[in-house]
């Protein structure tokens, strides 16, 4: 059984790669080969379903791992024998992720068949999708940090390629470059974190590292280093999952084709950061978790405020994505491990649905993306509208939809966290964001689908998308209904996902570095050493969760309702004029519209700074270093002037110190060679005298 899992997952991993290779090398000759990619994805999807099923049903509690040695260096005196292992680990989280990634990837492939038709690089587009799916699956399957990092970079590459797919547009290539470089910043932190761990534990494998931590071995014998490692690895997530302050790349990434945005920049890749956090959750100390929670909360708030005023349909969705990712990160930070992952899954579905829906709208509107030019599309494209609406309800946290379950859980977690640790700011942010989300999502829906069409010409030509595009929408919308996850529409805990599949593991960090509530009540030594057992939280925590459950629910419902209401007041019934309000609050409005001026800030400081500094250095290198090593610029100029009369070689050579020196000395020697023999004789006589003075015996 476990072999089957391994083999299947290897197949799942490699199928997209095969597709990529085939399409890349043969796509030019046989344009139809893009279908290979789609078919292979389909197979992969089937396999992943099998894997999911067999894992959850037959091997629910036992994890399957397989690894091989990639690099081995024997008996090295400094660090002992080193071997770098690569391998897979399949637990429930992996299995679920496999399914989610494959499903959405497949749907997006299908969607793209129609959406991208007629593009001049049609086949290569599918190739890129293939390489992305491959890398993403690598991240999902890995059981060690190095392989994680490797595929981490590879998804970066594929995202780079896909964002810059229409590289003729400067904005596109800019966005691609920005995405890669900003991600690199996070990756550096992640890499250093990995270095710390490896230096101590001589392995990259998660479980081995955790066992050692559990047995009390700390990096460089200090909790601080453990915290640092946690935060540094988290930096990778900050980059990938577009957390503040590195979130600026994601909205720009919308330059890519819309299906790509759905797949990479909404559902899967950006979620990889959260996935990473889920993987390293057990080694996070309290300090690290607090940092993570704050970053997540703040990110979600910032993104939500920005989303309020955006007019580009994809930009709105992008910022909502950032905001939701902030939610997940925050929930990891507050210890709501299971809900984080749960929200990851649900969000993947409804956000993919939203993006694909927007794609279908854009497709219908001939690549019009400004929602102020839309309106009234409800009648023209009903299927798109209803799927879009369902997803919107889900994301706004309306009961009976998946989003409500996960968001509610997260909010409850934050509330409990606030109660236990006194960090009340985090739940406050959380609930505010819930309200804002409801508002801007419905603003989007209303402006796009309700009311009068703003641009009649475009409106006339608008039409419902063909089946291959609407089918994925339907599937995803259906997956946003609560029933798939739990029988009880208001209690996620009852659901099988959280009850049987996803368990919050016990932390392995030293007790003194954990939050009080993360400590097992019966803190016996053995319970520390074993990993991935169901967490035995402290009594207070369980109580707090129970206490928080209903307040959280009602509160979230209230703010959601409020947000929806305001949205309707403003945009549906036009009771209040948004523009007037904007005019009143001009400052805040611009602040939000311009994304808190963060891009401008970065351009002014970091980017411009680096470029200026580098050009200064280049000058320095050219003039000074070359100068100093060759005998300093000024002297150089002087010499070349001096030797200007002579052969150009000397001019050239004069730049070099030796030549300068020699030129100088040589000239002074030349003075002596007057050609008058009597002068020479004078020199001789003086020379004799001087020698006599120097070398007289006393």
């Amino acid at each position, binding site marked *: 059984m476990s072999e089957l899992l391994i083999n299947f997952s290897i197949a799942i991993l490699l199928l997209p790669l095969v597709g990529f290779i085939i399409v890349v090398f043969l796509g030019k000759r046989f344009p139809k080969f893009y279908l290979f990619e789609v078919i292979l994805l389909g197979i992969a999807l089937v396999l992943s379903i099998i894997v999911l099923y067999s894992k959850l049903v037959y091997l629910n509690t036992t994890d399957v791992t397989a690894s091989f040695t990639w690099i081995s260096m024997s008996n090295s005196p400094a660090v002992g024998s080193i071997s770098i292992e690569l391998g897979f680990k399949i637990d429930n989280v992996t299995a679920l992720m496999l399914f989610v990634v494959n499903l959405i990837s497949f749907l997006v492939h299908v969607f793209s068949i129609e959406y991208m038709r007629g593009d001049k690089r049609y086949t290569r587009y599918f190739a890129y999708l293939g390489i992305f799916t491959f890398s993403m699956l690598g991240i999902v399957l890995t059981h060690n940090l190095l392989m994680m990092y490797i595929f981490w970079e590879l998804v970066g590459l594929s995202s780079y390629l896909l964002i810059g797919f229409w590289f003729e547009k400067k904005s596109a290539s800019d966005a691609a470059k920005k995405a890669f470089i900003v991600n690199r910043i996070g990756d550096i932190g992640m890499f250093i974190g990995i270095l710390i761990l490896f230096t101590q534990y001589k392995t990259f494998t998660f479980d081995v590292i955790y066992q050692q931590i559990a047995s009390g071995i700390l990096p460089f014998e200090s909790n601080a280093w453990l915290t640092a490692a946690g935060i540094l690895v988290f930096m990778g997530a900050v980059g990938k999952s577009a957390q503040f302050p590195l979130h600026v790349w994601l909205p720009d990434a919308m330059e890519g084709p819309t299906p790509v945005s759905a797949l990479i920049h909404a559902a899967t890749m950006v979620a990889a950061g959260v996935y990473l956090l889920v993987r390293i959750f057990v080694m996070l100390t309290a300090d690290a978790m607090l940092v993570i929670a704050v970053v997540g909360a703040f990110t979600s708030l910032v993104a939500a405020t920005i989303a309020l005023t955006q007019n580009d349909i994809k930009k709105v969705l992008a910022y909502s994505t950032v905001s939701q990712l902030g939610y997940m990160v925050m929930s990891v930070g507050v210890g709501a491990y299971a809900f984080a992952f749960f929200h990851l899954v649900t969000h993947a579905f409804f956000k993919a649905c939203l993006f694909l829906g927007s794609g279908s709208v854009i497709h219908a509107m001939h690549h019009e993306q400004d929602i102020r030019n839309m309106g009234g599309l409800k009648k023209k494209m009903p299927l798109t509208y209803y799927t879009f609406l369902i997803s919107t309800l889900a994301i706004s946290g309306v009961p009976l939809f998946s989003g409500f379950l996960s968001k509610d859980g997260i909010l409850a977690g934050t509330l409990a966290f606030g109660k236990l640790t006194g960090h009340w700011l985090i739940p406050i942010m959380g609930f505010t964001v819930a309200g804002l989300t409801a508002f801007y999502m419905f603003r989007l829906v209303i402006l796009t689908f309700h009311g009068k069409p703003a641009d009649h010409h475009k409106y006339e030509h608008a039409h419902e998308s063909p089946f291959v595009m609407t089918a994925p929408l339907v599937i995803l919308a259906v997956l946003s209904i609560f029933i798939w996850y739990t029988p009880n529409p208001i209690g996620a805990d009852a659901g099988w996902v959280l009850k049987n599949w996803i368990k919050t593991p016990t932390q392995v960090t030293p007790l003194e570095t954990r939050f009080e509530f993360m400590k097992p009540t019966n803190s016996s030594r053995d319970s520390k050493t074993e990993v991935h057992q169901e967490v035995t939280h402290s009594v207070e925590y369980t109580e707090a969760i129970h206490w928080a459950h209903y307040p959280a629910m009602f509160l979230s419902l209230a703010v959601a309702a409020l947000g929806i209401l305001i949205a309707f007041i403003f945009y549906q019934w036009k009771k209040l004029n948004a523009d007037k309000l904007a005019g009143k609050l001009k400052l805040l409005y611009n602040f939000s519209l311009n994304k808190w001026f963060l891009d401008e800030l970065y351009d002014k400081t970091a980017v411009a700074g680096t470029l200026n500094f580098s050009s200064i250095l280049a000058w320095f290198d050219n003039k000074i270093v070359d100068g100093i090593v060759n005998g300093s610029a000024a002297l150089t100029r002087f010499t070349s002037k001096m030797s200007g009369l002579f052969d150009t070689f000397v001019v050239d050579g004069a730049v070099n110190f030796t030549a300068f020196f020699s030129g100088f000395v040589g000239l002074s020697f030349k003075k002596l060679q007057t050609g008058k023999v009597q*002068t020479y004789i*004078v020199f001789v*006589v003086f020379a*004799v*005298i001087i020698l*006599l003075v120097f070398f007289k015996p006393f």
Partner: protein
Amino acid sequence: MEKKFFMNFYDIAFYLFAAITLVSALFIVTTRNIVHSAFYMLFTFFGIAGIYVLLGADFIAIVQILVYVGGILILLLFGVMLTNKITNVEIRTGTVHMLPAAIATAIFMSAVVAVMIWTEWKSEPAQIPLTTTKDIGYLLINDYVLIFELLGILLLVALIGAASIARRDKE
């Protein structure tokens, strides 16, 4: 008594010759008229010859007069005549960098004189040899025969060289 007189005569002679030598030498290097300095040279050579006599080197003195006065001086005079228009009686020569020359010479002379005075040279009670010619001849064909022959070659080479340079030939 007469010995004392002799010594005085010796001293007087020495100072006389010394004066002749040095004064004319001074004129040689200072006067602007080449012909004059050539003639002063004559006196210098005579003075040196006299000093040789005082040093008991009569043979060398004779050779000095023969070779220098009879040979080299004439050569130099010819040189002067051939390299100047005879028509203008005043054959003048300029002088170059006097100052460094003066400094150099001054320092140098002081150094040399100091050396000469403060060194305690090997000096033994000198007995004036009766005849030097025979012994010199003996030395020439015994100890110094190699050098003597070498000088022969040297003269030959000098002859060839001088001839081949000075000879006016059509080319």
